[in-house]
């Protein structure tokens, strides 16, 4: 199993989310600062209007400067917020009316110009606007300065309210952006997933090139994959051809030897000669059986690596194996007693056939003539079971668990040709399918063997 590196999808999502977070933060900062500036500007404009209105009402009466504070000058300040308002009107630096201690702001030099200051007054920060105007009192004009100050609480409140709203909007924007980036990442990775699925859905022997339209970026990967499969297919075909050829070269001469020996057996008369011819035939049988089972064993190991998990009916497979072995059983007048119920399982039909053939072959081999082999295919709960019981020699007194080990044979089968691979093959096939193989003697005396093959139902 390959340990996956960081997922592309997650990386893409994280990257997009980080960008979204940065943009959200930036937009929040900008909105807050703009709203703060806008509020401050509004306050300044109102303060300027207020001082201008007050300055308008200044007039001179009998050589003194007089003033009637217009209500509207303060009402407009209340329109922004419920802040405290201070004012001072001074003539030549002498306070005419208002708060005498409201000092510290700059005095505008040019008449009509409004100057703004932020200063501390009575423990609070205030914004102050000042305007100067020359009022003619008698012969000469005197400079009059009007100052209006307002605390900043309302402005701060408005600003922080706006900033909160901006923050909330930014968070919402961020969440939306993360969700959209996840969707976008998934969508852009979909072609990759589709290709992966198309490959993994295939059976173990399907090495045809993948014919799918893929995005341009994936084309090199696809063609590399197809080339790899092509090479793999060629190498598998070559090794299969080699095995076929090798088997052919070994087994054809063996067949010739066996046939010749059999003919000789019918023509010679001496007991000694017959005995040695039987030994030849037996040796040929032994070697052909072993090569067959070694090939089977290799096939099982190869196919179990990447198991085909098609839905197959275990009872159908059993029936076909029973049918193909019937002539062999008939030679010994052994009858197969098959009772079966449809038992769907997921697996490789060829492997399951190999397993059943090996078990049934054993049953025929170790059964005395004119007996029967009982085969029962059934469903038990969530399991499919095949039980194969013969009336043969049984498994002997030794422990039965080891009999599925490679090249292990029972301690009571010395007279029968065998390689000791049959049960190993069956056991490996069962394990590869998530099942098991169990052995037991049919009865206490040890005559007869029962092999139970168990597989999960599909």
């Amino acid at each position, binding site marked *: 199993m390959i340990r996956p590196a960081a997922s592309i999808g997650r990386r893409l999502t994280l990257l997009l989310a980080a960008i979204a977070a940065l943009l959200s933060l930036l937009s929040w900062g900008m909105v807050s600062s703009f709203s703060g500036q806008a509020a401050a500007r509004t306050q300044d404009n109102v303060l300027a209007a207020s001082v201008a209105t007050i300055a308008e009402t200044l007039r001179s009466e009998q050589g003194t400067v007089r003033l009637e504070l217009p209500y509207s000058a303060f009402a407009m300040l209340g329109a922004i917020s419920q802040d405290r308002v201070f004012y001072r009107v001074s003539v030549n630096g002498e306070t005419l009316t208002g708060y005498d201690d409201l000092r510290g702001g700059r005095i505008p030099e040019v008449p009509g110009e409004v100057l703004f200051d932020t200063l501390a007054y009575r423990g609070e920060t205030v914004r102050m606007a000042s305007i100067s105007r020359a009022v003619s009192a008698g012969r000469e004009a005197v400079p009059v300065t009007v100052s209006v100050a307002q605390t900043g609480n309302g402005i701060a409140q408005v600003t922080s309210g706006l900033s909160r709203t901006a923050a909330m909007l930014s968070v919402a924007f961020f969440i939306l952006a993360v969700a959209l980036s996840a969707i976008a990442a998934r969508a852009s990775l979909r072609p990759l997933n589709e290709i992966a699925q198309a490959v993994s859905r295939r059976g173990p022997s399907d090495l045809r090139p993948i014919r799918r339209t893929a995005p341009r970026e994936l084309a090199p990967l696809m063609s590399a994959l197809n080339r790899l499969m092509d090479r793999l297919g060629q190498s598998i075909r070559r090794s299969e051809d080699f095995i*076929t050829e090798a088997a052919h070269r*070994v087994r054809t001469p063996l*067949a010739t030897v066996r046939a*010749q020996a059999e*003919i000789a057996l019918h023509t010679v008369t001496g007991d000694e000669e017959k005995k040695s011819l039987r030994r030849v035939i037996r040796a040929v049988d032994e070697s052909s059986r072993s090569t067959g*089972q070694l090939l089977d064993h290799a*096939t099982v190991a190869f196919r179990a690596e990447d198991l085909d998990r098609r839905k197959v009916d275990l009872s159908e497979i059993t029936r076909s194996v029973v049918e193909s072995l019937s002539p062999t059983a008939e030679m010994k007048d052994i009858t197969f007693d098959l009772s079966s119920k449809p038992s769907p399982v997921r697996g490789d039909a060829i492997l399951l056939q190999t397993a059943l053939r090996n078990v049934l072959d054993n049953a025929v081999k170790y059964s005395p*003539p004119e007996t029967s082999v009982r085969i029962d295919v059934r469903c038990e709960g969530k399991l499919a079971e095949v039980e194969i019981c013969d009336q043969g020699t049984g498994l002997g007194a030794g422990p039965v668990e080891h009999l599925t080990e490679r090249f292990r044979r029972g301690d009571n089968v010395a007279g029968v040709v065998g390689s000791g691979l049959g049960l190993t093959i069956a056991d490996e096939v069962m394990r590869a399918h998530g099942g098991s193989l169990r052995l037991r003697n049919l009865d206490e005396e040890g005559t007869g063997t029962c092999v139970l093959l168990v597989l999960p139902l599909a």
Partner: protein
Amino acid sequence: MRFLLVEDNLELADSVVKRLGMDGHAVDHAENLAMAEDCLATAEYDLILLDVMLPDGDGRAFLASKRADLETPVIVLTARSQISDRVGALDQGADDYITKPFDFTELEARCRAVLRRRNGSARNEFKLGEAVFDPNSGTIQHANESIDLRNREIRLLEVFVRNPGQILSKSQLLDRLFSYDAEVTENAIEVYVGRLRKKLDSVGVRIETVRGLGYRLCI
């Protein structure tokens, strides 16, 4: 019965021809697919034994191309015991397969099974006086009655009817009847002869014991 054997290994083919001949079968041998075509064009066969790997092609491909207009059952001879190969042979339309090296007793059993499945297209019957013995189905038909024989009884009777009037020794019968990995003694022959005699009682056919030599079938 008449067999067509398609096999490129001459020594093996020679022994198969001889061995099947001992059981009274006629075997034509074709060394390659071209010769097999010629044989099929000129003669009728009861059964074809077809090797998979031949010098001028794959036996299975030949089978696939022929299957549509070929009624004769085919048993494929394969050198590979791997099951995928066998399954492949059956998919291409073979009736059965047998793995080299093969036991002639098994080959015969498979031929019989195939012919029986094909519903006895081959006429392979023997007259036993007034009765008829069909080794493929393993029955004796006598006066509207059918007597079933077990496999070894069929084999035994077949050996007798193919060698009419001859005295067959226990050891000869033993060699013909059993595959060689079975530990069978000549006593077993006595048992089977005894059983066969009982079944032949009603037919009016006897198996004589020739003291010290063996048995003979008297019709």
